[in-house]
Each structure stands twice: as C-alpha cells, then as structure tokens.
C-alpha cells in the first residue's frame, strides 16, 4: 500500500514539474556540446537575469487574478519604448533620462493597460487568445504612431532619429545615453565578472513588493477572483474593476521591465524589441514550472535561467551537432513555442481531468 503511495507521489511530482525537468535534461546535453566555458555562461546568466527578470515578474499578478498569461504585456513594452524615443529626442541621458522615460511612459502604460483590461473583461474565459490578438492590434496602432505620426504630427527634433523620408522613427535607435545606466550605478566586480548590482536591488525590491502586495486587501481580492469569480462576486468584490487593476499593474510593470531591458542592451529595435519581450517572458515563466493558474517568484528566476541558458547554448550546440548554426536558431524558436504549447496543454489536460472527475463524482460513480 505504502509503495503505491510513494510511486503515486513521485509520478505526480514528475508531471507537475515536467517542463523544468525536460529543460534541465536538454540543457545538460546541450551545454557540453556547445563548448562554452562555465565562466562565460555564468556571466551571461547574471546579465540576462538582471535584464529579463523584471519583465517576467510583471506576469505574476494577472495569473494571481485568474486571468492567465498576460500576452498584453507587449502594450507595456510599447509604452516604455515611446518614453525612450522621447528622451532620446530630447537628449536626456543617464539615470535621470531613464527615470524620465519611465515617468513619461507610465501614463501611457496605464491607459493601454486600462484598454487591455476592459477588452479582457468582455472576453471572459478567452483572456489569453484575446490579449494575444490585442497585442497585435495595438502593435498596429503603435506602428501607425511611430512610423507615420512621429515626425509629422508629433514633432521630433533630432534628425538622426528620423527615417530619410522625413518622418517616422528609424528601425534602430542608439540608446548610448542610457546604456547600462542602471547596471553600472553601483559597480561591482567579482573576479573577472561584472555584476549589475543596482539592477538586482531593483528586482529584489520588486519581489518584496509582490510579496507584500499579495497580503494587501487588493491582492487577496485578486486571489479570490482567481479561484472563483462567481464566489468573489457574491462576496462583494468588484470583480470587473479589480481585474482591470490587475492588468494595469502588469502593463506598467512590463513598461518598466522593457526600459530596464533596453538600458542593458543599449539599442532599441523600434519595431521588433517589444514583440519578443512578451514571447520570451512567457516562455521563461512556463519553463520555470509556472502554469496558467499558478506562478511563484521561484518560477520566474528558475525559468529565466533555464530559458536563457538554452537560448545561449542552442545555436552553438546545433552547429556542433549538425554543422549549421542556423539549425540551432530554429531549434531555439521551436523549443520556445513548443514549451508554451506543452505547458498550456498539460495545464488544460489536468483541468479537464479535474472537471471529469468532479462530474463523475456528481453522477455518483467512483472517481
């Protein structure tokens, strides 16, 4: 009897953590294949964790509120980018420049988050697909504003930001002015490796904020909505409004996350940077073992490390294995999307099984 229990426990552990386990195995194979030194990998991981964690953390609150993966975080990324375009135009640089970009982008992010939340409230039960499409839609509006409006309707002073035809922002903007301004704020070197201490402090502060938030009334309301909307509603919680607030918070955080991301990279791809922000953040979170209904801070960091490890290692591993680095690139894309598909499928499968079990017990049969 006891053996069966232990076996069942192990089975359940494996299934619920299937995704990170698969990933660890994949990495264990690919890392030696790629030929990178441990030192290089550790330095890369430190940089990437500092760069990407904030974006991934912004996904936690909508999951808490039962709204699934917030594909609408690209809206926040777009708001952040608009802020950065403006400060680049005004030649405001350094840490004040970055903070000013965040300050300007915040109302834009709040507005976009409000739109996203309102749209999602009208698509209950289909939040993820809707936020996904909404991301594309707003991307279209963003391109309308940035590729056509800026320079014509919105005055841009610096000629080097503008395309040769006279209006519209260039494809790549040099953010040299704010490059590493947060990372290098508190310089720290361990041996050969430079550690972006200030960024880590900001991330740590944000983690504390999330932990504190979950204890506030608003946070508890969101958790209640996440568990059961109908029950929360009858308990007097303003469901619609709270959901919108959850999305707004997530969007604003994604905005800041994108600014942190770009200050590390130093160049902004005006029309592409935000696309990948959403995709990679969600893939990372799922790889860390989070599901659509439950995500912890641990999932975030584990996921960022595993995802980026695979990201860095697969092109070289692909090259060694087959002789084409291009293969590694496609492998990376395949794994990112495949992971999301597998995670979503596992989660949905579990939910279906739970529902069937509940239905059978209602019918009076053994589960």
């Amino acid at each position, binding site marked *: 009897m006891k053996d069966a229990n232990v076996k069942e426990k192990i089975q359940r552990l494996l299934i619920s953590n299937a995704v990170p386990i698969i990933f660890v195995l994949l990495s264990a194979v690919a890392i030696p294949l790629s030929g990178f030194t441990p030192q290089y990998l550790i330095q890369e991981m430190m940089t990437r964790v500092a760069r990407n964690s904030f974006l991934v953390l912004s996904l936690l609150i909508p999951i808490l509120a039962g709204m699934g993966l917030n594909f609408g975080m690209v809206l926040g990324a777009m708001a952040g980018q608009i802020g950065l375009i403006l*400060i680049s135009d*005004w*030649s*405001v*640089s*350094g*840490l*004040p*420049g970055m*903070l*000013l970009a965040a*300050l*300007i982008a915040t109302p834009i992010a709040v507005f976009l988050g409000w739109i996203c939340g309102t749209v999602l409230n009208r698509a209950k039960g289909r939040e993820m697909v809707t936020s996904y499409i909404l991301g594309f839609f707003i991307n279209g509006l963003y391109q309308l504003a940035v590729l056509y409006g800026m320079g014509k309707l919105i005055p841009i*002073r610096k000629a080097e930001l503008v395309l040769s035809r006279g209006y519209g922002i260039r494809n790549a903007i040099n953010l040299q*002015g704010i490059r590493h301004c947060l990372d290098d704020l508190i310089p720290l070197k361990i041996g050969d490796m430079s550690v972006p201490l200030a960024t880590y402090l900001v991330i740590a502060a944000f983690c504390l904020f999330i932990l504190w938030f979950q204890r506030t009334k608003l946070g508890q309301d969101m958790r209640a909505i996440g568990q059961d909307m109908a029950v929360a509603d009858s308990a007097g919680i303003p469901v619609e409004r709270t959901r919108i607030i959850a999305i707004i918070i997530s969007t604003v955080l994604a905005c800041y996350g994108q600014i942190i991301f770009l200050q590390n990279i130093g160049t902004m791809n005006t029309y592409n940077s935000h696309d990948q922000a959403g995709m990679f953040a969600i893939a990372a979170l799922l790889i860390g073992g989070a599901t659509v209904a439950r995500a912890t801070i641990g999932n975030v960091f584990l996921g960022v490390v595993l995802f980026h490890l695979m990201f860095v290692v697969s092109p070289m591993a692909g090259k060694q294995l087959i002789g084409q680095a291009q293969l590694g690139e496609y492998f990376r894309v395949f794994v990112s999307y495949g992971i999301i598909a597998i995670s979503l499928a596992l989660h949905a499968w579990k939910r279906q099984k739970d529902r069937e079990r509940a239905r059978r017990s209602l019918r009076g049969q053994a589960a």
Partner: protein
Amino acid sequence: MTRRNAVRLALLAALVALGALLFLLGKEHQLFIDNQNVTVSGRDLAPIESLRVSVAGGEPMEFMADDRDVTVVRGPRASIRVEVLDQDGKVLKTVDASLSFSFEDRAMISLPALVEGLPYRLEPPGAQ
C-alpha cells in the same frame, strides 16, 4: 474642490515637478568652446595662442588661436578648468570656473573672455 481631488492634484503637480527635475538633471547640452575674436563688455579680445581645457574632469582638449571645439555636457552644472600654456607647454595661468545650464540644447563660451574674468557666455551657433 474635494479633499481627495486636492490631494490628487498635488500628487500630479509633484510628478510634473519630478519630471522637470529629471529633465534638468539628465539633459545633455552641446557645449561649444570658442577661442576666437570676441567683443565683450566693450573690450575687444584676441584669441589666445595655446590653451588646454578640461570640462567636468574629462579628457583635456587642446586649443590654438581661432579654434572652436564642441563637447557634450550633462546636467545643470559643469566645472571647467582652463590652462593658458606658453610655447613650451608650461602652464602660465589656470582659471577654474563653473558653468550652469537649464534646458537648452546648445551653449557656447568664449575662452578669451573667461580667462580675462569677463562674462563669457555667447550665443551658440545653429538655428533651433
């Protein structure tokens, strides 16, 4: 006006003020440094033969007569150190000054005027 609205308005004003402060602190200015003929306070000043200038503790720049150079300065204040050199490169005279800016994109200073202790801010080149 309700108390709540007053608080919100105050908060908004504070944010705008913060924005202005950040703008001031982070604004980059193109500083033109001029070593040419200039008339200031009724005096005609000639360019100085050989100078070394360091702005905000940065790389020293060499100036001959009639030179004009440009550098980028960030923030509302920048220190400037001007050393007048003789033909062997020995320092004859050192002048330390502090420049202040607000929100402008460009500024220009005149080295002859600065060395003489006269007002040294000029109109920067280029229409806005």
